[in-house]
């Protein structure tokens, strides 16, 4: 009997709690595959965020630390500086990384901490029930922007990859999506590279994943994927914003 596909060894068999159609599970799986392929599973220590992925510490087989909202890059810094041989990641959503944790992500990049950040951007606060995120699109309705995000009142969405690209210490920045099999394959490549960079000691690497949140977008999965393509991608173009890994 030939095994064609199986759960990555770097993941546990705990059923995930994510909503149907959510992108988190896909990204977790891609990370697990990357750990297996890079043979770093034993060395990984992950930092789980506050938000929908607060239970991510149950899904990875590695040792995990779960900390305060937005502080993942600081916690990861403490782990990495204490255990330089560990492969340390911080997994964060958009409110976590681009709002309450803005200082921590910027300065982790400034110091070029040799960590890997996986940033899930779905333009909404998920766990708390659909409030406006720093990445919420102009006009997008949220429970705290009931008439849609109005730049006059709430400003414009923030593009993290473009912003962090200005920082010398940020060594690898790529934005990917998980809406189609092709994009999932590209996301896998980017995530793997972001961890490979850490193995090589390249410095701060971040992959931003444009993800879908059917629940809080009040959309079915098909509509959510359509929203990713027609609304999210024009604001958040996919691509590589910085790649100094080869240098």
């Amino acid at each position, binding site marked *: 009997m030939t095994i064609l596909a199986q759960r990555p060894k770097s993941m546990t068999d705990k059923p995930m709690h994510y909503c149907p159609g959510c992108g988190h599970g896909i990204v977790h799986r891609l990370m697990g595959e990357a750990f297996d392929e890079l043979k770093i599973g034993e060395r990984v220590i992950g930092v789980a965020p506050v938000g929908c992925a607060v239970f991510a510490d149950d899904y990875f087989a590695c040792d995990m*630390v*779960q900390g305060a909202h937005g502080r993942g890059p*600081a916690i990861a810094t403490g782990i990495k500086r204490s255990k330089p041989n560990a492969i340390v990641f911080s997994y964060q959503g958009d409110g976590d990384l681009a709002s309450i944790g803005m200082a921590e992500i910027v300065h982790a990049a400034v110091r070029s901490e040799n960590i890997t950040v996986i940033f899930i951007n779905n333009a909404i606060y998920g766990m708390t029930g659909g409030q406006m995120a720093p990445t919420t699109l102009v006009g997008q309705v949220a429970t705290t922007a009931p008439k849609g995000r109005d730049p006059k009142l709430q400003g414009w969405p923030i593009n993290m990859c473009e912003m962090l690209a200005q920082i010398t210490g940020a060594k690898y920045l790529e934005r990917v999506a998980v809406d189609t099999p092709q994009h999932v394959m590209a996301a896998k490549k980017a995530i793997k590279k972001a961890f490979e960079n850490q193995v090589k000691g390249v410095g701060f690497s971040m992959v931003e994943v444009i993800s879908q949140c059917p629940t809080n977008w009040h959309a079915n999965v098909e509509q959510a994927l359509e929203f990713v393509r027609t609304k999210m991608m024009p604001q958040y173009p996919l691509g590589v914003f910085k790649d100094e890994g080869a240098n």
Partner: protein
Amino acid sequence: MTQKTLRKGNEALAEGAIRAGARFFAGYPITPQNEVPEFMSAYMADAGGAFVQAESEIAAINMVYGAASTGTRSMTSSSSPGVSLKQEGITYLASADLPCLIVNVMRGGPGLGSIGGAQGDYFQATRGGGNGDYHVIVLAPNSVEELGNFPKLGFELAEKYRMPCMILADGILGQMMESMAFNFDPIDPNKLGKFDWAVDIEKNGRPKRKVFSYKGDNLIADVTERAKRYGLIEKTEARFEERNTEDCDVLLVAYGLSSRACLEAVNHAAEKGLKVGLFRPITLWPFPSKRLLELAGKVKAILAVEQSLGQMVQDVKLAVGDKTPVYLKAYPAGGQPEGEAILQAAQSALSGKTEGLFDLQRHAEGFTYECKRDLSLGVQGDRKGGK
């Protein structure tokens, strides 16, 4: 053990911490504790550890959270407004049962306050400080020598009970120079053994480990277990120092720098033939209530002396109840206590004259205290010009 040398308080503390095996330090500049991160930036790397100047106190304490998760002896230091910022991380450290050392070289408050030494953060330190039901162990040094030697005690207590430990010093202690000696040999943290809860990269087939703060349905069991630990600590770890407490009429209660001024008062009293003793809590949490209650039965009055508006005195009152009258000589907002004035206050307390003192009385409605000082300042800040 070392020879006695002349050292600045903050530097003694920083060197003491490295000697005690601290191998991770993160901090942010704030007066009057800047010598601590400066010392760490110069010597931590040589000791094989890591120093990070963080982007904020919030980041610094969360870096400590990460480093402490790995079982590394980790610490941060700051001063009052910065320690307020750290409270988020401290409550997470408590919830995740992580040992670490937090240093507060107190300055005047509230808010930005002043850069002078003060003791206004007693409540914040002893009541938890952040959200939720928790404590940190609080050590209150009163000399440069204790500043240098308490980091070892702090790490040991923190690790024994798996919780943060705070050294609560103040700006004068941090800045002053005294002759001091380290009373222990440098510790190699690599020889201390490993924790069975720390995240690591050498798993060798053991189950995965998690350090986490969200307890969900297990929160009641989690907090209950911690409460039992707290009870054990209150029973076994209360530390204090006594001076002339046998056969005294007035018992001064003071910690940290205030206790130094009280020592002066105790010595003056002895010269004048007055019976004044000093009870100095060394641990502020756990507060040494049991011994204080024993002493309360033998004295005519207790005078709490503190560089705050009446914070520690609440623990004094909780400890002694109605057994003995409790008075307060308060030096808030950076006021500096002075031996002669304290001695006068002790004599006032003994004679029941409470002018210039706070007189603590237990009212039928509950625990409160009356201010006998004239505070007829009127009410300011009323809105004006409204229609």
